[in-house]
Every structure is written in structure tokens, then in C-alpha cells.
């Protein structure tokens, strides 16, 4: 008889379905994954250390470079943390615009997730469709702040610019287009037999375990835990708007897919409410010219498209830069759960599971 040996297979860091420079060392028994070791750090740029040596305004630009497909969300999280330290009141209009930008960003990020996740599994068309709609959002962002990827679109205390005239009409027009496009995605995938075979029952994890291993965001809600920072600890204008938090039931890759598809709809609902009810008024609060928060420390979390994005910032009250700048990156904590998810599945499912966690390596490595 033949002996069976465990085979060690190195996946990445240069692999198209690892969504960047992620390396996974797989231990295989035949085609089954026995264990996985995730190796990260290839994109480490020392953003935390760098931020401790830059002034409070310069850091906004650095936060863009973490989750670069959801840069506006990173900006909002950072600015709100500093506003909390400064005890600055942000005007209502600025909070509404921030909400619109965050939700547009969530749709853009989910479009990118959907396209790449589906292409990893073999559905080419969805990729082209999803990027077509992402383009519309990038156009909206370009009109708002002039950039298409790294926006630098917030300031401490509010916004750098008011929205351009007619922009809100375009946002509503985009919502109208997006409504029908979600149906197109669903038509391609939700009842597609290949899609069901590849995602149902893959990477099942129940709620308590998902919480324990540190999942957050859609990956956690797919397991049926109704945890959403927007609902539980409202920031920006989320406490004034109406939306639902979709949750899954089984906790497999298919549920995580359904949760994100439903989040498209909830985001559109939020954008519509915020755009139609956009209050008039100033866009920047009363912020001192030289930003120098009093000594103290705080942790503030927001819901990024990937999960709970937290900032822990320590100010020493003397210098014009933070004494300690720490980011709690959702992708980093979600990726930690990958070995648990892939154990016992086939090599081909590893690709589906990496996609299902929706990671961005710029944020994992910072």
C-alpha cells in the first residue's frame, strides 16, 4: 500500500486570489487542508509609527493608505476619534455628508468584494458588472474631492468642502441605477447552481465562536450575530436614520454573501434618506487653528465595510502629534480566523474563504 504524507503547499504572496500580498502556507492531506499558517507583513509600511511623527492633520492622508478601497471610511474614523479627544461638536450637515460618503464607500467596497470574490470562484461576468457600478461611485467621489482612490476627504471638525451643486441629484440618480444592478448580480449568483455548490456549507462558523476568534462586520453578521457599530454605538448621522442590520443563519460563505448583498440595499436606503434630508448649515465645527488635544487617551470604533475599525489614540497635550496612534484593523482581525475556517476544506475552497472574509492587505499590514 501507499503511504500518505502531508504536503506543504505555499500559496502566495504572489497569487491573484489572495487579494494582494498574502501568503498562506497550507498543510494538505490529499486535497484536504489540515492546517494553514497565514504569513503577513509584506505590505508593512509602519503607518502607526509614521503617524506618531506627523501632525494631526497630516495623518488623515496616511489613513487613506490603509484600507485603500474604502479610504473615506478610514478618514471618518480617524477624524471622529480626534474630535472626541478635542470634544468638538461636528455640524449636522457635515455628519450627514459623512454618512453619505461612508455608505457610498461601503457600496464601492462591496462591489470590489463581489467582483473579485465571484471571479475567484469562476464567475467572470459579475466582476465586470460590479466594476461598472464602482466606476460610477468613483466618479461621484472625484466630483466631491478630486481624487478617485485615496480621497483625503475629511477634516478634523467637519469637511474640507461643501458638496458641489447638483451632486445630491447625481447621488440619487446613482441610487436609482444601483437598485436595478443589484438585481442583476443576484440573478447571476443567488440561485446559480455552481455558486451554491461552491459557497453553501463552506467555512461554517457559529455565532459565539465567530465572536471569540475576533470576526467583525459582515463576516460576523453572517453567523447570525446582530453586531453593527452603526446601530450599537451610533456615530455620524446613523442615529437619525432608519436602516436594518441583515444577519445570516448558518454562518457559511453563502450567508456572508447574502448579508453583503442585503447591505447594498440598506446602504442605498441610508444614502437616500441622508441625501433627501440633508440639512443646511456650516460644514466645519469650531476647531482651533493649531490642533493640540489635551492629554488623554480614547478608543473609538466605526463600522467600516470590512468590520469594526477602531482607533486608539493617546495625546500627550504638549506636542502637535499623537503620542500613540493605534489602528484596530478589521481585516487583520478577520484574517486571523482564516485557519479556523479552511480546516477540513478543499484547496479550491481556500480561495472562496479568503474572498468571503473580504480582506485588504493594505489594512492588514498597515
Amino acid at each position, binding site marked *: 500500500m501507499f503511504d500518505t504524507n502531508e504536503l506543504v503547499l505555499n500559496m502566495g504572496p504572489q497569487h491573484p486570489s489572495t487579494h494582494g500580498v498574502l501568503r498562506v502556507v497550507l498543510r494538505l492531506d490529499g486535497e484536504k487542508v489540515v492546517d494553514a499558517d497565514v504569513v503577513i507583513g509584506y505590505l508593512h509600511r509602519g503607518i*502607526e509609527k509614521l503617524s506618531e511623527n506627523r501632525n494631526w492633520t497630516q495623518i488623515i492622508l496616511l489613513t487613506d493608505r490603509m484600507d485603500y478601497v474604502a479610504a473615506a471610511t478610514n478618514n471618518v474614523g480617524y477624524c471622529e476619534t480626534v474630535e472626541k479627544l478635542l470634544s468638538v461638536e461636528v455640524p449636522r450637515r457635515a455628519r450627514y455628508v459623512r454618512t453619505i460618503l461612508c455608505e457610498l464607500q461601503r457600496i464601492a467596497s462591496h462591489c470590489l468584494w463581489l467582483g473579485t470574490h465571484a471571479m475567484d470562484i469562476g464567475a467572470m461576468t459579475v466582476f465586470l458588472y460590479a466594476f461598472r457600478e464602482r466606476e460610477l461611485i468613483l466618479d461621484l467621489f472625484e466630483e466631491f474631492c478630486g481624487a478617485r482612490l485615496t480621497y483625503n476627504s475629511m477634516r478634523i471638525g467637519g469637511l474640507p468642502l461643501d458638496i458641489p451643486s447638483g451632486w445630491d441629484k447625481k447621488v440619487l440618480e446613482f441610487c436609482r441605477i444601483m437598485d436595478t444592478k443589484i438585481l442583476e448580480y443576484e440573478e447571476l449568483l443567488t440561485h446559480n447552481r455552481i455558486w451554491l455548490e461552491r459557497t453553501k456549507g463552506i467555512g461554517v462558523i457559529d455565532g459565539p465562536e465567530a465572536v*471569540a*476568534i475576533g470576526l467583525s462586520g459582515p463576516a460576523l453578521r453572517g453567523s447570525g450575530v446582530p453586531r453593527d457599530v452603526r446601530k450599537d454605538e451610533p456615530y455620524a448621522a446613523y442615529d437619525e436614520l432608519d436602516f436594518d442590520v441583515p444577519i445570516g443563519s448558518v454562518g457559511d460563505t453563502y450567508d456572508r454573501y447574502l448579508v453583503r448583498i442585503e447591505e447594498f440595499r440598506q446602504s442605498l436606503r441610508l444614502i437616500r434618506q441622508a441625501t433627501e434630508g440633508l440639512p443646511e448649515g456650516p460644514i466645519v465645527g469650531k476647531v482651533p487653528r493649531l490642533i493640540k488635544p489635551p492629554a488623554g487617551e480614547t478608543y473609538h470604533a466605526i463600522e467600516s465595510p470590512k468590520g469594526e475599525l477602531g482607533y486608539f489614540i493617546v495625546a500627550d497635550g504638549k506636542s502637535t502629534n499623537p503620542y500613540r496612534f493605534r489602528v484596530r484593523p478589521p481585516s487583520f482581525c478577520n484574517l*486571523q480566523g482564516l485557519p479556523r475556517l479552511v480546516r477540513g476544506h478543499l484547496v479550491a475552497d481556500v480561495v472562496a474563504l479568503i474572498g468571503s472574509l473580504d480582506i485588504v492587505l493594505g489594512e492588514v499590514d498597515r
Partner: protein
Amino acid sequence: MADGPVKDPGPDGPAGPGRTPASDQDAASGTPASPSGAAPVVTPASRPAPKPAAAQPPKAAAPTGPPDPPPPEGQSPPAFVVALASALPDSVTQLSYYVGDWTVIIPVAKILEVARYLRDAPDAAFDQCSDVTVTDWPARPQRFDLIYALYSIRHRHRVRLKTMVAVDQPVPSVTSIWPAANWLEREIFDMFGVIFAGHPDLRRILMPEDWQGHPQRKDYPLEGPGELLMENPIDWLKLRQSRDEADIE
């Protein structure tokens, strides 16, 4: 990665006076190590520093920690903190409230007990360990502030635990209580060199495995040899040569 940022170059190292990372011993023994090099240097020969002056420079140069303000009058602490203090005596050394956040300061020896209590007690139920992180205060004997940011999904409340740790003092790992802390503690080990006892897999996570030093310590230089190479190429070449020789040996 031979061209990475300067590792601790030793006594003959080429790093300029402002760049040499202060050794751990200096910081641990309480010498006012100043990360930015901004401390007024008092040479003992020219001016024997009087007693109050010796106490003042560290205050002015290197901060020794956040103020951790106590809760204001009328702000009663959450029920689970009161219950924690009565269930585990000596576990709460200080209680702090700042911009809406509660921080419980605990001794290192009590970390596991407190963590287990906060996870299991029904009125606390902190099932999610959001973040574990460290702040480095080199001017202090116990130079690291270790911070756990906890969240309870059931009660929707937050609290932060804080404890102070000296260099080379092992800290009990909370991975047995919150498995989510695994990578977070590895990152702290990598970036600050805090050692977690009982951690299942304590390796570097972001930096290369053979990296020397801990980049996010305050006395670690921000800029690597790239600039040093420009300023003083001969010294840098000497350092590289000595390092290569050490490798061969």
C-alpha cells in the same frame, strides 16, 4: 533585509547622537531617556545638577503617562466595575473616566482573573476583545501601558483594561479567554517586545523573522539607514561590514 532600518548598532555604531536607540537597561532603571533627543543635556562637570532640577527634566522632556483622570463627581461607575472590585479584591487599583470611556487599571498579576471574570459575569459579559495594544513611556520604570479594549455584544457596553508592565516582564496571555487576542498579542510582541507567557504561537507577525529590535518603541529611530547612508556613508559601510562578518561567524 540587510538594508532595513538600523538595528541596535552597539557602542561603535554609526548612528548620530540623536538616533542611537537608548538601551532597555537605561529606560528600565528610570534614567530619563528622551526619545526625541530634546531633553536639555546637563553635563555633570560643568554644572552639578541640584536636586529639584534633576527631577524636572524628565517631566519636561518625556511624558510619563496619560493623566487617567478619575471619574467626575456624580458620574457613578458602571455596575460591573463595582461588582468586579467586590468579587476580586485588590484587582482594581484605579478607575478612570475620560471623554466617555471607562478605564479600569489593574495589576499585571490579576489580568487573567479579571479577564475571566469580565467575560463570564452575566452583568459584564465582555465576549469581544476588540483590541489589545501598548503605549510606550520610556521615562517610566514600568514603561509599557498594556491596554485591552473590550466590548459586550449582549449589553452593548465598552470598557478598557490597563496595566503597567516593565521590560522583560512576562505578561500572562489572554488567548485562553479571548482567542481573538492571538494576533494582537503577536503584534505587540513584534512591535514592542512585550513577552506573553502562555501564548500558543509567539512569533513576529509584521516584521521579518530575523529582525532586530522592536520598531514601535519610542527609542527606535523613525528613519532607517537610508538617510544615514546619505549623511555618513563610510560609517554605514563599516557597520554593514561588521554585521556581515558577524553573520559569517
